């Protein structure tokens, strides 16, 4: 037991205190020292330049030390020397992390190139800061490595470009990417509601303002001018959606069609997507409403310019809509008058 503790202690001491000063632990200690000095400088209230120099030195030492340590201990998962990548990551964290805000994109994009720099600088510059000429075979390796890191950096950029597209056109996320030769959606992601749902509920609100609770006869007249109401609805939705400007607003168009059903009407409201989609014919979201005459007195709007005291025979319109907005492929079949 004692021997085990002694062995552990010895290996710990060997790990923390290397035999030679020229070791990666020294660099880490220098990094720690530099960091403590920057803290001290901050406590003493020196200029921000001093603190910055100390902190910068500390970060660079940390990157160098960890890279050296990984390489010295031969930590190579799957045979890949990860030391330059880790050192590059630390340098990128330091360089871009202090920006705040949107730092992830420049940091990730620069990461492969910075890692290449970590590999290339020691072979191109000697210890006394004079340029070195490496052997042609090393130069060939460096060229390949540089181009590879450029390619990986482009992939990161492409990823961020796709995220920018989705920010511009949020409804794209709700679609299905099985056909794509470029992108893949990781399983386990929940899908959001399409922005078309907002257009649909906006259209429902406007329609409710116009016909819900109004006398049935005026609603019948409203429905006579179907084409005009359609245009009014589209214009009104566009006007209200202008509060939430988005590039994809141009891709949505609302439409509706009444179908006679019993005493009243079935009204289908559609938000039609005319942008890129997985279906060749596009798709639309559908909201089913029913517009029915109700005879029970003046339950709704009593402040109309009709008679204050309605007769028992006066019928009022009642618009009720379903909550779900199923997605259907193709353009809505407006002119096939379905009797249900």
């Amino acid at each position, binding site marked *: 037991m004692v021997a085990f503790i002694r062995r552990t202690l010895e290996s710990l001491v060997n790990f923390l205190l290397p035999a030679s000063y020229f070791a990666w632990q020294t660099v880490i200690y220098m990094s720690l020292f530099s960091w403590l000095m920057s803290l001290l400088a901050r406590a003493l209230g020196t200029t921000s330049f001093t603190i910055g120099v100390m902190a910068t030195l500390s970060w660079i030492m940390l990157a160098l030390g960890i890279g050296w340590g990984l390489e010295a201990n031969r930590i190579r998962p799957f045979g890949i020397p990860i030391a330059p990548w880790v050192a590059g990551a630390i340098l990128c964290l330091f360089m871009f992390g202090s920006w705040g805000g949107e730092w992830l994109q420049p940091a990730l994009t620069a990461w492969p190139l910075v890692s290449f720099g970590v590999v290339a600088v020691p072979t191109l510059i000697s210890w006394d800061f004079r340029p070195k000429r490496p052997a042609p075979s090393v130069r060939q390796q460096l060229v390949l490595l540089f181009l590879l890191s450029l390619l990986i950096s482009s992939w990161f950029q492409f990823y961020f470009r796709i995220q920018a597209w989705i920010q511009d056109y949020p409804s794209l996320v709700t679609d299905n990417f099985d056909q794509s030769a470029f*992108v893949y959606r990781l399983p386990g992601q929940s899908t959001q509601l399409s922005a078309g749902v907002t257009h649909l509920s906006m259209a429902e609100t406007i329609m409710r303002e116009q016909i819900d609770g109004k006398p049935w006869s005026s609603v019948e007249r409203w429905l006579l001018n179907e084409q005009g109401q359609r245009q009014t609805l589209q214009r009104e939705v566009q006007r209200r959606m202008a509060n939430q400007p988005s590039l994809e607003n141009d891709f949505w168009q609302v439409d509706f069609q009444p179908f006679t059903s019993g005493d009243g009407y079935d009204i289908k409201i559609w938000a039609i997507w005319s942008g890129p989609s997985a279906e060749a014919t596009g798709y639309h979201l559908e909201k089913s409403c029913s517009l029915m005459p109700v005879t029970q007195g003046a339950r709704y709007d009593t402040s109309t310019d009709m008679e204050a005291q309605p007769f028992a025979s006066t019928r009022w319109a009642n618009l009720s809509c379903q909550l779900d907005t199923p997605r259907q492929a193709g353009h809505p079949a407006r002119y096939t008058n379905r009797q249900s």
Partner: protein
Amino acid sequence: MPLQDLLFNLGIMPLRAIAFQSLLLMVAISLEALVLRQRMRLGYQTSMQYAASLNLLATSLGWVMFLIAESMLPPPLRSQIISVVLFNRFYPNGWVDMLPVLTVVSAMGVFFATYWVKLQGLIWLMVLLERAPVTAATESESRHQRYEMARRGKAAQRQDYPSRTLAVLEANALSFTAILILLLLHQGAITL
């Protein structure tokens, strides 16, 4: 749940693009190495290294050009690119009739641009590696070639450049053909 949040924040990733591009790059590099080795009398390793450098250069420059061009295109064309990337098809808008022509023209443009980039890249690579251009051994030339040279009176000042230019052209044509066939097969497999 943090993992769910992370997955959600990652969004849609271009994993298929990375996989396909790696595969196509390997095909192109091995085919071009074959051509360069035969045409320029290089060793196995050297021809592989050259082909890999040239193709990686062309691909990286292509990405940079694409990313710049994409941000400058008018919105209707930009949404067509989005449509191709996300859904592998064009969608009907005002440009849809012109798109096949545009695609063919830009593909041809890309072919010649790639050829030029690869040729320049090869010249610079050989300068960087201090490799004297290897002149093709005279014995290996056919009688017809020697006759042509003699007829034009160029035998004395013959240089390596035509062989290098032709080698890159042939390598580029071969890899483009192979990639085109693979892409058509992939497209056929998707639509069937």
